[in-house]
């Protein structure tokens, strides 16, 4: 898919500190050879679906453009996004992207700690005002003034707001930052809140998934760093190039779905033959993500390939959407735990019985009228 990108207002670094170091210089300083650098450019061009002609453009951009710093914040989370990210399949991508990132702030990965670490945020904020990217993993809990997540001695929500205030754009990593994930599942005791509900007036890129696929994460970062703009987003703020289609649209078991061949138990014939997992509750038809095309761990496998349905981990509120093993799940809006089929059957049954009773009474009334008054036509005259 070719991506048309939405440019955002690129602000020139302000202040008296000249920002001259380019990405290329940084990479070379980190010990990455020119050969590796060029390979990385081709790889990125291909993984973003831009074709080989884009590789020299990416190289040129990285050689000439001043480095955009990235601050990686951690809120209420399980760190699975970081775990996914550092396992990006291609070692080159990982090295390069990590070199691009690790220079700045990521409290899980960086060497510095304590006050020294916190000072970095301040420094980046000052030095690159309006020209740095904030990547958020996890989300801020708002109950009790945000005391459920403390970052460097302060509520995370405060750190988040301050850090984002001068950012150019924000990346919301994973289901936590994009939608809230498990800590926001009902009853959400800490009032964990997705980033876009706390930060407004900035471009925010949602990269949902629990976690997102490593190559999707590096793809998004690389795209933003090299092209200096955010990728084109859909209605829910997700990059179209990775979240434009459902799992079901690219699933290799789709042929079995269309043929009507389903696994109906975990150990039945259909299951062994690799039939479609729809009847086992697969959420592929209602989940937007790149698993069925990019797969996981460098293309080794992905959930459906290993025989389990998709659980819809990149969809909003997936913990609250009923069982992972049913397709017809509970409708929570009515405040009762009932699904469309139980409501429907109960309603149709009750109404059917009521009709039968009503018809019987009607027939009785009519019979009584016609026997006691002779012609039913007389009814109108009474």
């Amino acid at each position: 898919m070719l991506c048309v990108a939405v440019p955002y207002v690129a602000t020139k670094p302000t202040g008296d500190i000249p920002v001259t170091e380019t990405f290329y210089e940084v990479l070379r300083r980190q010990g990455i050879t020119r050969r590796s650098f060029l390979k990385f450019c081709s790889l990125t061009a291909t993984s973003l679906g831009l074709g080989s002609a884009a590789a020299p453009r990416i190289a040129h951009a990285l050689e000439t453009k001043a480095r955009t710093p990235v601050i990686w914040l951690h809120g209420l989370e399980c760190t699975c996004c970081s775990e996914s990210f550092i396992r990006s399949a291609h070692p080159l991508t990982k090295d390069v992207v990590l070199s691009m990132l690790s220079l700045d702030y990521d409290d899980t990965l960086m060497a510095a700690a304590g006050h020294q670490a916190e000072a970095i945020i301040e420094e980046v904020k000052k030095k690159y005002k309006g020209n740095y990217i904030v990547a958020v993993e996890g989300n801020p809990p708002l109950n009790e003034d945000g005391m459920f997540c403390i970052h460097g001695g302060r509520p995370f929500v405060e750190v988040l707001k301050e850090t984002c205030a001068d950012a150019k754009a924000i990346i919301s990593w994973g289901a936590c930052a994009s939608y809230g994930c498990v800590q926001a599942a009902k009853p959400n005791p800490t009032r964990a809140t997705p980033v876009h509900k706390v930060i407004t007036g900035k471009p925010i890129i949602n990269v949902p998934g629990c976690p997102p696929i490593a190559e999707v994460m590096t793809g998004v970062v690389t795209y933003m760093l090299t092209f200096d703009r955010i990728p084109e987003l859909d209605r829910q703020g997700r990059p179209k190039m990775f979240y434009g289609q459902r799992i079901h649209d690219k699933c290799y078991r789709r042929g079995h779905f269309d043929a009507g061949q389903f696994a109906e138990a975990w150990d039945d014939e259909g299951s062994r033959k690799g039939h479609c997992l729809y009847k086992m509750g697969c959420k592929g038809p209602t989940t937007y993500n790149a698993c069925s095309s990019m797969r996981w761990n460098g293309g080794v496998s992905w959930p459906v390939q290993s025989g389990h349905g998709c659980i819809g981990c990149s969809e909003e509120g997936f913990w609250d959407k009923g069982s992972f093993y049913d397709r017809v799940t509970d409708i929570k809006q009515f405040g009762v735990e009932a699904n469309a089929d139980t409501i429907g059957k109960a309603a149709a049954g009750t109404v059917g019985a009521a009709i039968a009773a009503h018809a019987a009474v009607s027939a009785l009334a009519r019979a009584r009228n016609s026997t006691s008054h002779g012609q039913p036509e007389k009814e109108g005259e009474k």
Partner: protein
Amino acid sequence: MPGEASDNFLMGYIRFAHFAAAYIFAVGLLGRVYWAFVGNHHAKQIFRLPITNPQWWSEVFFELRWYLFLEKTPKKYVGHNPMAQLMMFFFFTILAVGMLFTGFALYSEGAGLGSWQDTLFGWVIPALGGSMQVHNLHRLGMWIMMTFVLVHVYAAIREDIMSRQSLISTMISGWRMFKD
């Protein structure tokens, strides 16, 4: 479903039948809306309830009493009786539009980003809380529609017999016969 996937297309045919019926349904509904504009006042009945008219409300309750066997003599109407009009408005007009919106929103997921279905109806999915929720509500709509069909068919036959006016033949001929 035994055999090779390449030899079978059961779900494919079911989905095709559903989508073909859905398009006919959509075109029919559009035609009906058009008719509400150019047809006579009866054609507008199921789109507009005279809720500010107390007389109409009292007739709704009259009909309700008639169905509860509390009135001995039915009233006769050339168009829908007020109770029927109320029911048709909610269980046909609103429901049909709801099925159309949720249905085309689901269709847009297959048709893809940028398709006309996505442009016109794609917003429904986040608005209703995600794809899964739209599937569930679309399915619930089916049940409501089926339940309504039960009531609707029963009421039409019963009225035809009990209220001394033609209903079923009227659907075809367009003429209402009063039998007294």
